[in-house]
């Protein structure tokens, strides 16, 4: 029942906001719909934590502790981003960068996007998972080009074509998966249901599945932003409106990685080797290292944090690639931390760029003098994402690196080097933005601060103390991934 509402509310929200248009309170209604989604997601989470995994709706939907954790995270960040976008979009409108018609498009697509991601997370059918991922991309293409500047159109086109090709490869992977499954489960709709596949995974044809996994990994990996398929990501993040950057970075990348992980569980069962894990480790490590060195060269603040997202998604992919209870636990924890911290950073960066009127880091200076809370938000967010204790990112990165030292010592120097380079580059660039001298005026509106500090507070709390029920929940999810 909760599930029906979980998917129904964003969809209804999308239709309603498309019809409601640009009346004065559209942003509040957007936030209200997101809040309702969050409320339903919490109910669903409570139910799963209490009574374990469940299959709903004739086997079409499947919820266990792995995806319910992502559902809760998605709903939470979607809600706080809606809160942030309220003042943000109002300022953009006053600056004349957006008009009423585009705001209508923004609000409607936002809800559809959230709905598509929730569908991708909860569906049991690997084919529907593909459909929902593609729907999520399509919902955001026009959001990336919302400002209609040449650069934003270029970014959106790149996003459209590259992710389209990527997802076409994933479709081929899904076809191969169905091909292998159909032999065991018989033709028809049930052969793509993940729970059924998981039950017979040992009997699936290994050669076909390994080929299928390569296509699925490359396909969904394009969406995760794994190097060398990442080139759409910094453009889309930098040129789209900041709330869109926040949800792309904080949510969409996670959902794409979720799709990879669901496939990995099946492939591991069929092959009995760690071929899937090694591939993921390779892609992950390459992304971490490449992104760290590219961060150094950025001049645009949103681009820089987009590369930092590639770095962190690479780290998470690497952790899941290593497998085992500890690494999976660390991967899940890092997914949570990255989502919360990165979206908080984008909230702060969004207001900072509005204030300076540019995204060039050289022109953003002295935030702390004119808008102290904004400056501190950006500084703390940056410290958190760089993995400074006591923030939660430290805990998850520490776990990942210590596991890497035990299991794959050859990878450790690369990881440490990349993290070090990224630390120096990001900190060196953010520090003058926050503390330098400035002649910039204050923001005309009160910036959205609650979402920033709510996220950072959660990250801090999880760094100091993970409540036992949450730890148990993560352990359960890590176990499902084959720990």
């Amino acid at each position, binding site marked *: 029942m909760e599930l029906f509402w979980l998917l129904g509310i964003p969809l209804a929200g999308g239709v309603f906001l498309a019809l409601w248009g640009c009346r004065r309170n559209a942003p509040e209604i957007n936030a209200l719909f997101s809040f309702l989604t969050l409320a339903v997601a919490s109910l669903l989470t409570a139910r799963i934590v209490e009574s374990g995994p469940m299959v709903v709706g004739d086997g079409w939907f499947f919820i266990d502790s792995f995806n319910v954790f992502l559902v809760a995270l998605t709903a939470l960040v979607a809600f706080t981003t809606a809160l942030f976008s309220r003042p943000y979009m109002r300022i953009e409108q006053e600056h004349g960068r957006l008009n009423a018609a585009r705001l209508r498009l923004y609000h409607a697509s936002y809800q559809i996007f959230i709905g598509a991601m929730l569908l991708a997370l909860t569906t049991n*059918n690997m*084919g*529907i998972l*593909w*459909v929902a991922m*593609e*729907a999520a991309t*399509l919902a955001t*293409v*026009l959001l990336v*080009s919302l400002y*209609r*500047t*040449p*650069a934003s*159109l*270029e*970014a*959106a*086109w*790149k996003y*459209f*074509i590259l992710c*389209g*090709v990527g997802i*076409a490869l994933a*479709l*081929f992977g*899904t*076809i*191969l998966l*169905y*091909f292998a499954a*159909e*032999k065991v489960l018989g*033709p*028809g*709709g049930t*052969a*793509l249901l993940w729970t059924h596949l998981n039950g017979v995974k040992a009997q699936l*044809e290994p*050669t*076909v599945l390994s*080929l299928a996994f390569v296509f699925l990994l490359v396909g969904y990996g394009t969406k995760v932003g794994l190097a060398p398929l990442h080139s759409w990501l910094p*453009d889309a993040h930098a*040129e789209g409106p900041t709330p869109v950057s926040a949800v792309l970075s904080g949510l969409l990348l996670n959902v794409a990685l979720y799709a990879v992980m669901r496939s990995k569980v099946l492939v591991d069962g069929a092959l009995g080797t760690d071929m899937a894990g090694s591939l993921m480790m390779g892609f992950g490590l390459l992304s971490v290292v490449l992104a760290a060195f*590219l961060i150094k*060269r950025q*001049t645009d603040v949103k681009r820089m944090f987009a590369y930092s997202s590639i770095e962190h998604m690479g780290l998470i992919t690497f952790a899941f690639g290593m497998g085992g209870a500890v690494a999976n636990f660390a991967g899940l924890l890092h997914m949570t931390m990255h989502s919360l911290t990165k979206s908080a950073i984008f909230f702060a960066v969004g207001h900072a760029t509005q204030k300076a009127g540019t995204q060039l880091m050289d022109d953003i200076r002295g935030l702390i003098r004119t808008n102290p809370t904004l400056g501190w938000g950006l500084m703390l967010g940056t410290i958190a994402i760089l993995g400074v204790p006591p923030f939660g990112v430290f805990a998850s990165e520490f776990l990942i690196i210590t596991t890497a030292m035990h299991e794959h010592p050859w990878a450790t120097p690369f990881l440490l080097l990349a993290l070090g380079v990224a630390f120096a580059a990001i900190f060196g660039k953010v520090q003058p933005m926050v503390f330098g001298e400035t002649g910039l005026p204050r923001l005309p509106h009160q910036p959205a601060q609650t979402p920033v500090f709510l996220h950072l507070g959660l990250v801090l709390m999880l760094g100091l103390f993970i409540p036992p029920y949450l730890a148990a929940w993560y352990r359960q999810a890590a176990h499902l991934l084959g720990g």
Partner: protein
Amino acid sequence: MMALAFHLQVVNLLAALLLLISFAMLSQRRVVGLVTLFAWQGAALAVSTAIVAGTTGQYHLYYSAALTFGLKVIAMPWYFYRLVRKLDVNRVVEPLINIPTTMLIGILLVIFAFNLALPISEMSGTVTRSTLGIAIACVLLAFLMMITRTKAIPQVIGFLSMENGLFFAATSATYGMPLVVELGVALDVLVGVFVLGIFIFQIRETFDSLDLKHMEKLKEK
């Protein structure tokens, strides 16, 4: 049995036709010609899917054939023709790599595709398994076309033709995906083309051209 053998030959013929059309698309310089070829490719796909449905008793494939016919033979080509006329972009355009070279690369891709398909089609139990190689070849050729074109509409036709190849692969290896999934995929493709329509007008408005060469500003310095 006689009938089955005959039908299979027709399917094989249509598969060969698909491959030929893919090559023709690679060598086509005009956008309108490309749209016509795309429509023919869709028609070949729809007819072969319908024949497979009839001979094997997989009746859900009839829906998929009808869907292909409605979307890819009627709706989308009609829409593209309109778009091309409205935007007046039907000129001769040279691809990035000259056409003879592209054709040679295409032939290599076909050889590669047949090698890739061999182990899979040996495992397949469908009567149409021999066409899997052609399906993969179509996907790769469409991919090549996307790489070598710099205009917006040809790139998208390449993308859609890639999707045709994938559908053909699904039909030849497994008699098609479950119906729900096919419906979902068709819906996504439809929305995608719709989004593209809006998008092309935005690009046109901003750049006064659909040449993607204008869109190479965002590069790593």
